[in-house]
């Protein structure tokens, strides 16, 4: 028997395919490509890991970053998410697509991480790997928010966004999750409901309440 890493699989799934799949409201639990990818993951194939990480790293990282508010925590929880997915791949029944399954694991992991962190009364950490000068400078994506705006407007934008993120960080976790998934990640109600394993009605209710709390925190009109 060949070693698992040499299992010949043709991984035709790509990141684009996974992203476009999210736009579908009703979809079969697992496509042929996803089944193939899942088999590769179960077999411990390096190629399958490459495809999995390439396809899902960015959306998951952004979700976790907005949920946890810290890039290092987001990276750590993202790693835990992928490891959990690998460990649980053998028992995953394929009742939802891989993206929803990963979101489900990531949110559970983020909730656990937050609980663990709060139980130790920690507020922030400084990564030993972080370059202080690099951290202070705005990232490329942040400078691209309003490319046509003048520096003053850009500064105002950044300040306003900092206020939004601060208000978001103060929301209760359940409300923060749905607001981030809906309003920042642009996910459908059905996808959010599937990822959180709650009803669509509950999703809508939480989004409405989360938005109301944010408006209050940011002094915005209802």
């Amino acid at each position, binding site marked *: 028997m060949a070693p698992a890493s040499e299992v010949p699989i043709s991984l035709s799934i790509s990141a684009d395919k996974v992203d476009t799949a999210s736009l579908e409201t009703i979809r079969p639990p697992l496509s042929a490509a996803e089944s193939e990818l899942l088999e590769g993951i179960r077999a411990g194939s390096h190629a399958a890991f490459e495809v999995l*990480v390439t396809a899902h*790293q960015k959306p998951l990282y952004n979700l976790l970053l907005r949920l946890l508010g810290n890039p290092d925590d987001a990276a750590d929880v993202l790693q835990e998410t992928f490891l959990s997915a690998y460990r649980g791949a053998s028992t995953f029944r394929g009742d939802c697509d891989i993206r929803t399954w990963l979101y489900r694991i990531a949110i559970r992991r983020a909730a656990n991480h937050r609980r663990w962190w709060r139980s130790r009364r920690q507020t922030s950490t400084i990564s030993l790997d972080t370059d202080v000068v690099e951290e202070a400078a705005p990232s490329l994506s942040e400078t691209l928010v309003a490319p046509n705006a003048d520096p003053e407007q850009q500064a105002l934008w950044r300040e*306003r966004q900092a206020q939004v993120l601060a208000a978001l960080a103060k929301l209760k976790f359940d409300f923060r999750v749905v607001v981030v998934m809906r309003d920042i990640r642009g996910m459908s109600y059905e996808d959010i409901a599937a990822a959180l394993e709650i009803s669509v009605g509950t999703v809508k209710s939480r989004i409405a309440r989360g938005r109301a709390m944010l408006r209050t925190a940011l002094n*915005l009109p209802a």
Partner: protein
Amino acid sequence: MTNDTPTDLDALLSAVPEVTPPVHLHQRLVTALDLEALHHRQRNTWPRWLAEHPKLIGYGLGLAVATLLFSSLFVPVWHPLGYLVAEPNYAIVHVSQGSGQQIGLTLTATRPYLTSGKGFDTLPARLSGQPGGMLVIAEILPSGEARCVDVVEPKADAALVAAVNQALRGLTFCPATRPDGRPVTARIAFYLEHIAVRG
């Protein structure tokens, strides 16, 4: 009520920039997965099988607890007998009324056992459920002679001990010996189901 119409808040939230993950993160994640897979392959088969079937561990533990609970609920324990069984120099035999059969005693290095004509070396199950009789402890001398040393239940009195001794004289015992053949004094416990010896 849900309100999904665009507002200033929607604009602010949708303008939150998408962040590109750190460059090294992709490699870190793939390496972590490769290492985990390697570790998974190197792990022994049965712990991995157990890890993949956590419910079975739960079922096993549940069954063990249930067995423990039920066994403690339904199996009567008669303390004098239990104590004697646990004592390595004792063995328990049942002598039914009017028994004239020969009982042979053999002593092993660690645990003596008694055999009757039918052969049993532990307390018969039906006796443990009927602790209303009389427990007699007798000593078997190397000469093969047996004498009563104690009557545990229900009451020991001189007349009863004499009656038991009388009954013991009606039985024949082989001397107890160690595995090397040396004779030794051994003790046995009799459970007398019917107190016929009184008469």
